[in-house]
């Protein structure tokens, strides 16, 4: 039976071939990438034990990203809904407006350490791309961002930011022209240029090492939260629910990593996937809608696919969640029953966005709005001493066009 180990970070609980629980993850990569992936694995292994590197990381997390991000009670929303207290970890305060900056900064530092001058990355909502372009600029690296043509259209503000930071956006026209194709094209580019280029995968997906680096980077979120919880409540409260949206799953892992060893009766982990439009058959919710295990972008995970193994098109209002696969570590958390996964539809997310912005001085993007939808749904049924914490991991500035179109407002 699959079991979680205690006192070992989840990112390190894999076997020698890189599989969590014996079946999720791995490195299904073309031969050409074996060497660069091995080099990166060794380098990361070394760097994460290197005090100087850790000091550097902490320096940039604090002075560049702006850690810690705040932890606030959503008083009005809690009062309006009744029941549980709703709190938010406002990760969108991080430099650039989302959690993607952690992974981007760490990758840029690794790239520097490896002596490479070029960095490439994929992006869906454009946040991973924007942050990578920021970090590249900060550390003097040349940057290329691969982005689906459909996403370029719907996330214009982030594209403008990337260009302003001097990054080249490479539009991807193949397949569904969204994140899945951007990741494929980025990997292809790396196959052809791995001798002088470092690749950053934008989430806890891809070959094993990329899952680890990303999870190691976003884990900062829960380290901060743990301190903040103790400060606010004197000790870790008895009933907590940590609610996070899940696309690839990088912010959710970062939000949860310090709390995985706790009993789930004390700290429940709830992941909310993108259910897509209410009446559509398409979605981006492989965990909560029981997709089969498959191999996508170098890792085995639950994947939206057909019987033959062709990757299914997905649909979601939120470009950042619009991905057919999911992190192998979330598959592991699902199968060990440590986390619970559900989904919210496009409409649920829009409603939640409206409600949160009405009651609070908070502007969650469409991705965390999925998490808020679940919080809003369950809060009224829960006791007053239950602490719901939502990771508000992105800012809605990038969604202004979609929000205007769907809700008729411009912020």
């Amino acid at each position, binding site marked *: 039976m699959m079991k979680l180990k205690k006192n070992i970070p989840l990112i390190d609980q894999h076997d020698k*071939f890189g599989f969590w629980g014996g079946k999720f993850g*791995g*490195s*299904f*990569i*073309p*031969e*050409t*990438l*074996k*060497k*660069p992936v091995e080099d990166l694995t060794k380098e990361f292994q070394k760097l994460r034990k290197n005090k100087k590197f850790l000091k550097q990381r902490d320096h940039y997390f604090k002075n560049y990203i702006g850690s810690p991000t705040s932890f606030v009670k959503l008083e009005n929303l809690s009062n309006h809904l009744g029941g549980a207290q709703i709190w938010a970890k406002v990760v969108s305060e991080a430099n650039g407006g989302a959690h993607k900056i952690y992974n981007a900064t760490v990758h840029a530092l690794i790239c520097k350490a490896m002596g490479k001058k070029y960095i490439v990355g994929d992006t869906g909502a454009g946040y991973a791309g924007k942050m990578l372009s920021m970090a590249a600029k900060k550390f003097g690296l040349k940057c290329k961002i691969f982005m689906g043509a459909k996403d370029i259209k719907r996330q214009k503000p982030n594209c403008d930011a990337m260009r302003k930071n001097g990054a080249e956006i490479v539009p991807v026209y*193949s*397949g569904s022209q969204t994140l*899945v194709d951007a990741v*494929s094209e980025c*990997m*292809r580019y790396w*196959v*052809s*240029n*791995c*001798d002088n280029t470092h690749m950053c995968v934008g989430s806890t997906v891809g070959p094993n090492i990329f899952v680890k680096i990303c999870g190691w980077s976003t884990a900062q979120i829960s380290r901060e939260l743990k301190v903040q919880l103790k400060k606010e409540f004197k000790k870790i409260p008895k009933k907590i629910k940590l609610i996070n949206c899940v696309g690839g799953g990088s912010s959710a892992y970062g939000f949860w990593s310090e709390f995985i060893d706790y009993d789930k009766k004390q700290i429940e982990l709830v992941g909310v996937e993108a259910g897509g439009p209410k009446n559509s058959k398409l979605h981006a919710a492989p965990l909560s809608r029981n997709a*089969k*295990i*498959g*191999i*996508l*972008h*170098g890792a*085995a995970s639950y*994947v939206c*696919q057909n*019987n*033959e*193994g*062709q*990757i299914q098109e997905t649909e979601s209002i939120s470009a950042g969640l619009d991905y057919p696969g999911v992190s192998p570590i979330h598959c592991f958390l699902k199968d060990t029953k440590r986390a619970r996964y559900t989904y919210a539809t496009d409409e649920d997310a829009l409603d939640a966005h409206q409600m949160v912005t009405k009651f609070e001085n908070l502007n969650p993007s469409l991705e965390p709005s999925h998490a808020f939808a679940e919080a809003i749904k369950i809060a009224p049924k829960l006791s007053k001493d239950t602490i719901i914490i939502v990771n508000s991991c992105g800012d809605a500035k990038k969604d202004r066009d979609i929000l205007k179109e769907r809700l008729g407002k411009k912020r």
Partner: protein
Amino acid sequence: MNSSLISQAFKNTKKEKRPALLTYTVAGDNSKKKSLEILKSISNYADICELGFPHNTPIADGGQIQTSAYRAIKNGIKINDVFSIASQFKKSKKNKPIILMGYYNMIYQYNENKFIDKCKKSKIDGLIVVDLPYPENKPFALKCKKKGINFVQLVSPTTSKERLKQIIKDSHDMVYYISMLSTTGGKLKVAPKKILERYNKIKSLDKNKNIVIGFGITEKTIKSLKKADGLVVGSAICKEITNSINKRQNAVTNVTNIVRKLRNKIK
């Protein structure tokens, strides 16, 4: 596996003092019937035929093969159709080796054992799985070997010396050397001399292994690499299928012409 059709093909071409010509086409491109016709026709000039089973997220393929794969999938090709194309091909060309090539998820969904059994039944001679590298592929390669199917290992310019030794040692009748850091269909960005230098180093590890070179091989570049045991042409062929469709010309004739020309360049 000394008696395999694949090693036989190399024996024949060595007798003729030329490299084997390996072609790659995608099953079902642009229809089941057409792709079988193309396969039969080009096999008059090709020594070994690689047949791709298309996947819609091909992370190691460039534009030409992607286009062929998307076209085949759009036309409704299913994995069982791929097997039926292969087995029909074998009915008329029973001594021509055929190698299936594709991505692991398709095999995983079909079930490894069932997939290998089906290969056996369809008289498939070998398998190339792009995203199942060594040593992860060892158990699967062993299963293939037990059923008399060649598992073709890939090596590339980034493969370390130590790894090369192990891969060559565990390989079957044929090893595929990727000429350069590239997806399929890239422009040959390394000098042929350099490619052959590396190639010879690999070859020196075990002279008895048949090592073919692929990626970036076209009518223009094929002659410069003819010292290899075999040369694979894929994207140039897929591109010709696309061109023929766009010009409403007969793809079978056009593709066959290209393969004939390729063959003439290495005689």
